[in-house]
């Protein structure tokens, strides 16, 4: 709860700081705020408490995911430095919106009531609509914002209709009440309940860009300014998956049989569409969009497994995925800026020579995303897969996922090939701030550290 309050206050402070002449203070200030929130959040560890008439519960699950999301924001912000140099007039607003949207994300991982889920999603999404269109003179950004907004509002409607149908069937918005009603009725109360559940699943699947509700993702990711794409594909997705798991575990555990077939179909489709879609891309950013679709698939696998290991697997996978994705987008920002907005693989040609640090960080990130051992991503996949095979009947799902992971290597390594094996088109070294380089090194080391000692995080839940 402290993190929600602090973030709201800090967001407002940020807006006022925006009146000042110097924009340089905004980034350090926001980082400081986030660090404070990160620390304050940890105090709630092992001290579960309910708020607002039990509509919100800050338990370890919430604290862990809040920690990851705040950390992700903290890690991706330093790469926004060039926004400052461009003397963007709305800088303070962007930082504040990020902080505000984090509030929504935190509500999404700590809700106990459908109302809070809805509000959390909306706080997160409305801020993201604005941020998607923040580069308002570029048509691509406009288009991304408009698509994201229209589709987002549409699927919010679907989600709400699902909530109402569940409410009609069970008479409550509380997850525990819904679970109780469902449990006495053998998991399926009536057709209204089942339909509502289906609509809920569809609504949240949209938020985490799971196929077949992923179609907006490539366009929106590509059009949105890279910094916010990075946020979108990490924080928004993690919040969505965590909310999804919480919903299923707390309210619909008894209805497993009702949602399992739908979810497994969505999972397989997401894995296949995400990976195959990424293969054919020539634009690195668009490839990352499809790759984030595919990672939603791996995350959903843990949800499909639905056992004691699911939450810890989701947690670890989220963290490993976030770390790698942040690096990928950060490097992309630097490279595309140097190459006049070029975001294709070719933009990375020869980066290994001109900027060994960027290239190395990118290589580790790509290894982590594709699940090569000694990176966090490997253990992320391993934990998810071990969670799934606890149920022997799901072995085939692991086989599909493993094959798709092999496909993944192909497109992730395209950029590695470009960086190390292609001659540089533009031999100029890309300038990076020392703080940003430090953060890159930090994330890379952290990724490798988690690949050697995953128990640091995997034991938390």
């Amino acid at each position, binding site marked *: 709860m402290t993190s929600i309050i602090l973030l709201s206050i800090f967001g407002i402070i940020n807006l006022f700081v925006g009146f000042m002449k110097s924009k340089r203070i905004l980034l350090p200030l926001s980082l400081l705020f986030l660090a404070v929130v990160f620390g304050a959040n940890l105090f709630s560890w092992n001290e579960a408490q309910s708020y607002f008439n039990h509509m919100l519960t800050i338990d370890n699950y919430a604290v862990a995911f809040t920690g990851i999301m705040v950390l992700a924001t903290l890690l991706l912000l330093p790469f926004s430095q060039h926004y400052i140099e461009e003397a963007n007039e709305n800088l303070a607003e962007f930082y504040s919106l990020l902080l505000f949207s984090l509030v929504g994300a935190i509500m999404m991982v700590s809700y106990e009531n459908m109302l809070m889920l*809805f509000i959390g999603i909306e706080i997160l999404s409305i801020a993201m609509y604005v941020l998607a269109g923040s580069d308002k003179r570029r048509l691509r950004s*406009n288009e991304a914002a*408009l*698509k994201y907004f229209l589709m987002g509002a*549409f699927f919010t409607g679907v989600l709400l209709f699902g909530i*109402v149908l569940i409410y*009609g069937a069970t008479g409550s*918005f509380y997850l525990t009440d819904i679970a109780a009603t469902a449990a006495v009725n053998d998991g399926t109360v009536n057709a209204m309940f089942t339909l509502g559940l289906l609509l809920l699943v569809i609504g949240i699947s949209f938020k985490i860009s799971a196929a077949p509700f992923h179609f907006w993702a490539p366009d929106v990711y590509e059009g949105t300014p890279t910094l916010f794409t990075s946020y979108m594909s990490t924080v928004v997705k993690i919040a969505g998956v965590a909310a999804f798991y919480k919903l299923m575990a707390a309210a619909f555990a008894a209805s497993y049989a009702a949602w399992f077939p739908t979810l497994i179909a969505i999972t397989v489709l997401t894995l296949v569409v995400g990976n195959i879609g990424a293969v054919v891309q020539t634009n690195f950013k668009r490839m990352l969009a499809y790759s984030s679709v595919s990672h939603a698939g791996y995350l959903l696998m843990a949800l499909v497994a639905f056992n004691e290991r699911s939450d810890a697997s989701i947690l670890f996978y989220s963290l490993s995925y976030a770390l790698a994705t942040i690096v990928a987008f950060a490097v992309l920002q630097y490279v595309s800026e140097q190459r006049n907005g070029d975001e294709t693989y070719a933009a990375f040609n020869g980066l290994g020579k001109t900027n060994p640090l960027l290239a190395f960080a990118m290589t580790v990130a790509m290894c982590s995303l594709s699940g090569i051992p000694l990176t966090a991503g490997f253990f992320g996949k391993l934990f998810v897969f071990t969670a799934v095979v606890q149920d022997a009947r799901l072995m085939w799902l692991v086989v599909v996922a493993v094959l798709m992971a092999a496909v993944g290597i192909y497109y992730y390594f395209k950029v590695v090939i470009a960086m190390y094996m292609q001659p540089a088109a533009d031999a100029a070294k890309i300038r990076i701030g020392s703080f940003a380089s430090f953060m890159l090194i930090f994330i890379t080391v952290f990724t490798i550290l988690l690949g050697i000692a995953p128990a640091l995080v995997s034991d938390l839940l």
Partner: protein
Amino acid sequence: MNQIPDIIRTIPLNYYLYFSTALFIIGVIGVLIRRNAIVIFMCVELMLNAVNLLLTAIASYRADTNGQVFVFFIMAVAAAEVCVGLAIIVMTYRNTRSTDVQLLNNLKW
């Protein structure tokens, strides 16, 4: 004040359900087939209002205020969404001089 739920209850709940579902589906179809961003947005609002209507009906039938409170939250959030949404549409209009979503094909689907 207790009369209003009573009045609502004079119509069977299923009727509300069918009506709201019909409204919702009209909204969904509108979103899928219309090309004007503003009309699409209005269809989304139609969906939200279908939800509101059903929430109110169910809440009165169950004599549970939670559902009615939810309606206020939906209205408030929808208002916020309208602000942002119309701003985005205006921003797009300034660049393209149109609100036709078909024109926005810089990014392929």
